[in-house]
């Protein structure tokens, strides 16, 4: 029994490492991204194996799915801008400076030493050392939800999670700030099969995303995974040009970005007072408050991730210089 499992583990671990190396060394950037996506899928499998389905969900949806789409979009943009959109020929699109082989080997040796040190430290650390297990078990009844990871994210360490949503907000503001009304590569013709696919899939994705959010209070799932799945809808809409962001939608988008952060912080503040501190949800309302926050945060995450994929702020008619408009 253990031997078969160990063999599986070793093979999976080996594949993960091999994919990591391959995605950095393969010459074609498109292949590198494909390899990276596979790497992400297999890491998520490994995390499932380590009984961390929540993390696996988040990694598969956000770390691999959305990240992969972002990387591809950027690659596409680079090829478009440099006018080398042909297949397979656009290599080394953005050379920084040629690094001498000596430097690379020196760096590799340096990192090898670091790895060795870390591995030794890891082997020296207690196997399954002390943790939060007992504290969490003790606090669970007062948390308002039944799933420990959700309780940690939305109650025990809600402050971390609020700041994580703030990071997402900062990212979307920065991205809107960075890209100013760039021209986009032209739309593809996807044909009828695509239409059928969209009609079948989009509603299903919405249902699955909502289900994940709902399920989060008692089983793996929750705001981030649900939000990422819903963001996939946005991605598909944007990719297929069914929805094209327009300047008029900017105001609404801004509200959608801040909705989660605002609601989260607002609830945290509003529950304080009367002897309670911020984030201390009254026990009888904890469940509904957490669900409310999760729902709004999910909307924000979905819209924000889709906006991060789209990239630029939709600005009015392209000004010649692309500056000082809006």
């Amino acid at each position, binding site marked *: 029994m253990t031997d078969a499992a160990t063999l599986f583990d070793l093979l999976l671990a080996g594949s993960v490492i091999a994919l990591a190396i391959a995605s950095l060394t393969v010459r074609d950037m498109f292949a590198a991204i494909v390899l990276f996506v596979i790497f992400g899928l297999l890491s998520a499998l490994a995390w499932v194996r380590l009984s961390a389905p929540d993390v696996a969900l988040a990694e598969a949806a956000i770390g691999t799915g959305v990240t992969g789409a972002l990387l591809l979009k950027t690659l596409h943009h680079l090829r478009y801008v440099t006018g080398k959109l*042909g*297949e397979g020929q656009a290599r080394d699109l953005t050379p920084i400076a040629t690094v001498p082989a000596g430097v690379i080997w020196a760096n590799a040796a340096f990192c090898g030493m670091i790895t060795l040190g870390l591995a030794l430290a890891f082997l020296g650390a207690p196997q399954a050392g002390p943790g939060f297990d007992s504290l969490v078990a003790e606090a669970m009844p007062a948390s308002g939800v039944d799933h420990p990871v959700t309780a940690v994210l939305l109650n025990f360490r809600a402050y971390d999670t609020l700041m994580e949503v703030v990071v997402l907000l900062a990212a979307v503001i920065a991205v809107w700030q960075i890209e100013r009304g760039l021209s986009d590569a032209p739309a593809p013709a*996807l*044909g009828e*099969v*695509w239409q*059928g*696919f969209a009609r*079948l*899939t989009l509603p*299903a994705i919405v249902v699955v995303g909502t289900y994940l959010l709902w399920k989060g209070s008692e089983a793996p799932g929750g705001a981030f995974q649900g939000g990422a799945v819903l963001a996939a809808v946005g991605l598909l809409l944007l990719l297929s040009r069914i929805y094209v962001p327009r300047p008029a939608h900017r105001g609404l988008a801004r509200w959608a970005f801040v909705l989660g952060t605002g609601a989260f912080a607002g609830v945290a503040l509003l529950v304080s007072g009367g002897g309670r501190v911020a984030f201390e949800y009254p026990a009888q309302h904890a469940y509904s408050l957490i669900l409310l926050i999760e729902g709004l945060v999910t909307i924000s995450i979905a819209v924000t991730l889709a906006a991060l994929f789209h990239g630029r702020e939709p600005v009015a008619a392209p000004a010649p210089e692309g500056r000082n408009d809006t």
Partner: protein
Amino acid sequence: MPDLITFISAALIAAGAVFFIAGTVGLLRFPDTYCRLHALTKADGLGLALIALGIALTASSFGEVFRIALIWFFVAVASATGGHLIATHARRVDRAEGKEGS
């Protein structure tokens, strides 16, 4: 009786795995893009269907069966669409390059 179900389930799962392996072999050995695509979309769709069936046989609740069916449905739709899109893409590239597959 449970033994029989377990046995059937195991057999189905094994058959599914065989299809996966066949698909991979096709991907590696077949001569050009379209052949590979053909082998792949058939093999992995069937492979997953068999494995899903095998797992569903030993499921403990209806919810599980439903989710397994959902998974199979998603993969089938994605596989069909994906196959079509990849084929269109490959054809367009072929046209752009003049002729020549592989």
